[in-house]
């Protein structure tokens, strides 16, 4: 068992009057893939958006409780979200490359964090990130073409490369394969397997099969509550909770 990287403690999230998360206590281990499953609207995306404070963008959203990364509280008004997001990267449901060149998509993050001072340093970061995202071979000859011109699966890998480019510790993935075909999905899953050697990964998914394939730990959410969490094998073979059992066997969802 790896060390705990992220720890949430009585996390509550409100959208206006509506409460989206209820007292979530969830530990996420370092260099491991944690999958969050559950029916639509159960709060799993809301939970991962708390980890990089993306909920700040939504005016009516209010977060109470604690989230710690490496023992440091991040749900703190004085915390600099910019440096938090440098450490916690995110990949979204729909591929959202910037409408710029492939090169600029990757180099943007390092540039704003002052990580690549010279052109050669940036070139190196771009190459390394694209290689890590298993995209280098496909795009190395057309780095100046727009990122939006790639196929859906390539765009999503580009977004993963963009997240990797600033060298984060954690990568959050919000249903990264929901807009992709099975072949592209397989590639992303392979990639996740590879990435977990370096990064702590949290993935939200609707596909139970995907959770089984990629994750070591699984959390099941329902109606804003964390119902059950444990080793992926155990959750899918022998869950403690009746509701988890019903969900994974497809009785509701």
């Amino acid at each position, binding site marked *: 068992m790896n060390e705990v990287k992220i720890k949430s403690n009585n996390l509550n999230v409100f959208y206006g009057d509506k409460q989206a998360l209820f007292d979530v206590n969830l530990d996420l281990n370092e260099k491991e893939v944690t999958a969050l499953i559950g029916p639509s609207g159960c709060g799993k995306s809301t939970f991962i958006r708390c980890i*990089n404070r*993306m909920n700040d*963008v939504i*005016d009516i959203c209010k977060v109470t409780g604690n989230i710690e990364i490496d023992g440091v509280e991040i749900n703190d008004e004085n915390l600099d979200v*910019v*440096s938090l*997001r*440098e450490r916690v*990267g*995110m990949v*979204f449901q*729909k*591929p*959202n*490359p*910037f*409408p710029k060149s492939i090169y600029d998509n990757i180099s*943007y*993050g390092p540039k*704003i*964090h002052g990580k690549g001072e010279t052109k050669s340093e940036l070139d190196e970061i771009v190459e390394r990130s694209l290689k890590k995202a298993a995209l280098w071979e496909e795009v190395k000859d057309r780095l100046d073409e727009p990122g*939006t011109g790639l196929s859906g699966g390539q*765009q999503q890998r580009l*977004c993963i490369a*963009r*997240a990797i*480019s*600033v060298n984060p510790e954690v990568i959050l993935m919000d249903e990264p394969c929901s807009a992709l075909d099975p072949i592209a999905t397989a590639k992303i899953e392979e990639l996740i397997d590879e990435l977990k050697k370096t990064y702590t990964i949290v993935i939200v998914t609707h596909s139970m099969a995907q959770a089984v394939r990629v994750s070591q730990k699984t959390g099941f959410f329902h109606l804003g509550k964390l119902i059950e969490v444990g080793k992926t094998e155990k959750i899918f073979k022998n869950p403690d909770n009746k509701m988890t059992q019903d969900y994974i066997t497809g009785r509701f969802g």
Partner: protein
Amino acid sequence: MTKEQRLKKRHSAERRFRLYGIASICVALLFVLILVNNIFSKGSSAFMKTVIDVEVFYDPELIEIENGASEENIREADFYDITIETLLKSYPTKNLDEENELIDLFTTDAEIEIKKAFLENNNLIGKKINLEITSSDDIDQLHKGNYPRDLPEDRRRISNFQLKIYDTLVENNKINKNFNNYYFNNGDSRDPELAGIGGALVGSFYSIIICLLLAFPVAILASIYLEEFAPKNKITDFIEININNLAAVPSIVYGLLALQILLATIQLPRSTPLVAGITLALMTLPRIIIPCRASLKAVPPSIREGALAVGASKFQSVFHHVVPLSLPGTLSGTIIGLAQALGETAPLILIGMVAFVVDIPSTPIDPSSSLPVQVYLWSESAERGFVEKTSATIMMLLSFLIVMNFIAVYLRQKFEKRWN
């Protein structure tokens, strides 16, 4: 009703609707065609002027200066006698009345034209040259066929004697049509053949530049702040509603506002492009803010999230990604706002731009006219020459508007990025 009947009814409803649509487009096109045809048929002749070929003899007896005189001396010299002599030579006359009628065939600026020819070629003393002197407005209109010559003499501006001279001149090929340089280079004038849109063009140009410099940065900053940074609460809602209201305020109200504040209170110089620019900027501001906000809103939120997720600050995500992506829409909105401002007349009338200004303004604080106001001024004048000038100026104004709108559409189509 059977299934077939229902289906038939549905199809015929669709056909009917298409027919209505085509019919309304045809009606709209017909009106545009009538308007354009009307303006073109009246205005296109204003780009040419009628000239009369005369022989000028720079008689050393009549001229006050000598060969090689400095330019300044020539400018100050009197060319009146030579001019009269030249004009009278163009047709034999018997008495003073006839002489006056003959001289009336030429523009009042004939002396200036003769002096100009002398200036351009500074050793003409004692020499004869052929020169094309601009005709008076009456001859100009007669020659262009805008003037009925079958009216009785007492109801015509041109006498029988003048008609006789004209016919003789035409017979001798002495009357020609040239490009009307006065129309583009001159300011306003009481004489239609000398009146031009030069002053109005420069005045409109200064006004629009000042309007752009004031309205564009303010509108951009206001819309970026409101769209990206401002909290959504009652105050911003109130501001939003009022921006929409301001865009709908009749322009004459802005004119009144400028009259009271800019002219009466601050005492800026009246009739100037400076005041016009400020007034137009006030009017254009909400009309630019609205399309700017719309184009910022059109940038998908996923772009903002993508930037934020790699650790860009709010400011960086807005200025590195959202604003550049919204730029095509922003710029085309601005240009369309400026095109509206260019055609605005009412507020300019109130701030005194209707003044009769002969000089072409050299700075934005000189009194000036503007294109739409020039149209308004000339449309009220009685002389026939101003009718064609009015239409020609409308043509100029419309072509500026068409060019600006074309640029706006071009910018939007060329630079608009597509996401996914």
